[in-house]
């Protein structure tokens, strides 16, 4: 085994992490890995924005302080096009069974058929609704977008203090744009035209924006700057009747420690024709930080080890059900024990609808940001000419895309 020749050659392995349960749960298991390679793994925990900034700077300036980078769906394209990360297959040993990662997540982690990071959390969308409120108003769980809009209006007018709807309003490619995109796609929208130029200022974009804005009238105050947390907490706090959010938030509603609506929530896939926005977070090996062979080997083994089937099982044993990256885990009995069946059903139903809905482009972060800014301006009422606003965002995107060449 010439792999183990690297034992002791890499004194430290630096990893960027974000406080996901899958990452924090590693803490007490690191010693195993440290012993295996006679190394010391150091995971630097960062907030989401800091994590993005740090990883980008570390790779782009050639600092290479980190061997393992934390990547999400929004910047994968950028990292890949800049050549900052190794393809997963190149670095993670076969034994970790890359094929077992959830297909929806693997898809998100893949660019041009090559998977770059090992996902340990991610998913698609579910619609969550308050069974009690719907029952009270005599409404069936909506199955189409039109039904949902109608239901929202009715529920908002109902005299129960709750709002019909909630969503993200705060700007950002991972914020309002993230939730707006399914609407945009549902209207048949495409990001780019055949010439590779931005096309989201077309009819679909305008319609989606108008609908999204309209729904905001039925949401809690302050929605124009809601981030996911505000939105989910509003729902969890019992103020909202219907919410479409990422499926990971499902189990939160059932946590009696934190939720005031335990047992009053129904789960369903997003009503037609809304698609489900896929996302994933995971680890990849940095080309800048792990340039020599041994470092690459150890870093690759770490990624494999940290996202392995066994690791996920051990998490389930510890009662952590929220981060699941592997199909085998989803199918395991241990998982079923921890999560309501209702939710698993919804998950399974949503799966096929899930896709990476955002633009796969290295410049997506800035295009998304500008779009998010425009949307926020519309939501908060600073602008009302939707078409003009989108045109401007598209113009900016054009500029960004041009620079890419």
């Amino acid at each position: 085994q010439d792999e183990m020749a690297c034992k002791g050659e890499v004194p430290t392995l630096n990893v960027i992490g974000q406080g996901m349960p899958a990452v924090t749960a590693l803490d007490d298991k690191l010693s195993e890995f440290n012993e295996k390679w006679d190394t010391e793994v150091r995971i630097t925990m960062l907030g989401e924005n800091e994590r993005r900034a740090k990883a980008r700077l570390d790779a782009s300036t050639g600092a290479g302080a980190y061997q393992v980078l934390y990547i999400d769906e929004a910047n994968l394209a950028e990292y890949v096009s800049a050549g900052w990360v190794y393809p997963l297959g190149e670095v993670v040993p076969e034994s970790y069974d890359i094929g077992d990662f959830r297909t929806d997540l693997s898809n998100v982690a893949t660019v041009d058929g090559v998977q770059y990071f090992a996902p340990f959390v991610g998913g698609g969308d579910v619609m969550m609704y308050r069974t009690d409120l719907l029952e009270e108003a005599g409404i069936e769980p909506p199955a189409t977008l039109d039904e949902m809009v109608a239901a929202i209006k009715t529920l908002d007018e109902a005299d129960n203090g709750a709002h019909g709807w909630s969503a993200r309003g705060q700007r950002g490619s991972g914020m309002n744009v993230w939730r707006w995109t399914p609407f945009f796609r549902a209207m048949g929208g495409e990001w780019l035209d055949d010439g590779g130029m931005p096309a989201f200022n077309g009819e679909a974009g305008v319609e989606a924006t108008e609908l999204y804005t309209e729904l905001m009238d039925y949401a809690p105050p302050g929605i124009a700057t809601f981030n996911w947390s505000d939105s989910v907490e509003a729902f969890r706090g019992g103020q909202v009747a219907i919410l479409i959010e990422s499926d990971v938030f499902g189990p939160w509603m059932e946590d009696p420690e934190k939720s005031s609506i335990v047992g009053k929530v129904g789960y369903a896939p997003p009503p037609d024709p809304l698609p489900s926005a896929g996302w994933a977070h995971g680890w990849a090996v940095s080309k800048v930080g792990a340039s020599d062979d041994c470092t690459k080997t150890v870093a690759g083994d770490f990624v494999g080890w940290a996202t392995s089937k066994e690791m996920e099982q051990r998490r389930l044993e510890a009662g952590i059900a929220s981060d699941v990256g592997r199909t085998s885990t989803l199918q395991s009995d241990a998982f079923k024990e921890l999560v309501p069946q209702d939710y698993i059903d919804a998950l399974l139903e949503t799966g096929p609808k899930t896709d990476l809905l955002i633009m796969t482009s290295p410049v997506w972060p800035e295009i998304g940001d500008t779009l998010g800014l425009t949307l926020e301006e519309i939501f908060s009422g600073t602008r009302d000419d939707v078409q003009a606003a989108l045109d401007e965002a598209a113009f900016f995107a054009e500029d960004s895309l041009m620079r890419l060449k």
Partner: protein
Amino acid sequence: MGKLISATLTRAVLAVLIVVALGPILWTVLGAFKELRDIVTPVPKLFFEPTLENFATILRNPTIRDGLLNSVIVVSAAVLVGAVLGIPAAHTLARHARKWGDDVQFFVLSLRFMPPVAIAIPFIVIYLDLGIYDTLFGLVLVYLIVTVSTVIWLAVPAFERVPRDIEEAAAMEGCGPAEIFWRFSLPVAAPSLFGALVFTFVLVWNELLLALTLAAQNATLPVVAASITSLGKEVPWGVINAATVLLVLPPLVFIGLLMGLLNTMVRSGPK
């Protein structure tokens, strides 16, 4: 009688103001003992079952300890060196530089006009070349821009307020400029310098961007604090509150010590 009423009134106003001013802090302390469920409620809860879980989460987190240690080292080194270099320079500017003192003083301030974003990237590159990227030393070095310039800027007026005749009397005793500074101006100006030092301390203690960009493993507390705000997808309000409470304690202790030191050094107060 009217006097008495108005005196009580101002006292009441003051009390209300203090409570309002500290309200968010008190609320934070309260929140640190709440479970998330008690925090995320439309009607704020004053009474709840307190939990120590939030603190436990924080204290279990080893990055806090490391962050604290790094912060203490970096900040104390930067403030100390800033004081050692800056305070004498400020005295010189206040006393020995009549013509160009003002300009130097302003230059010193102007160093801080650029947003840290612009400083960060050149520094990463240079630090990599020098091999001090991701070292505490490197952090201290950039922070020196902040500490030295702020100390100078704030200490000059402090020294200008030292009565000149005291320094003259010392000069008559044969004290050179260094001795005058050390034995007279410094002790007399000490209470005003307190503000300058605390100010400088606060600035570097809370610095986030440079700490984030120029260090990797050696994260300081603000970086750690930022990481705590995103434990998982859920915003852990209780944990943030607890962390906030914990993170504020060390600098408070530091400032308390500084204050005590000053109080023993110069018994100030009304005559």
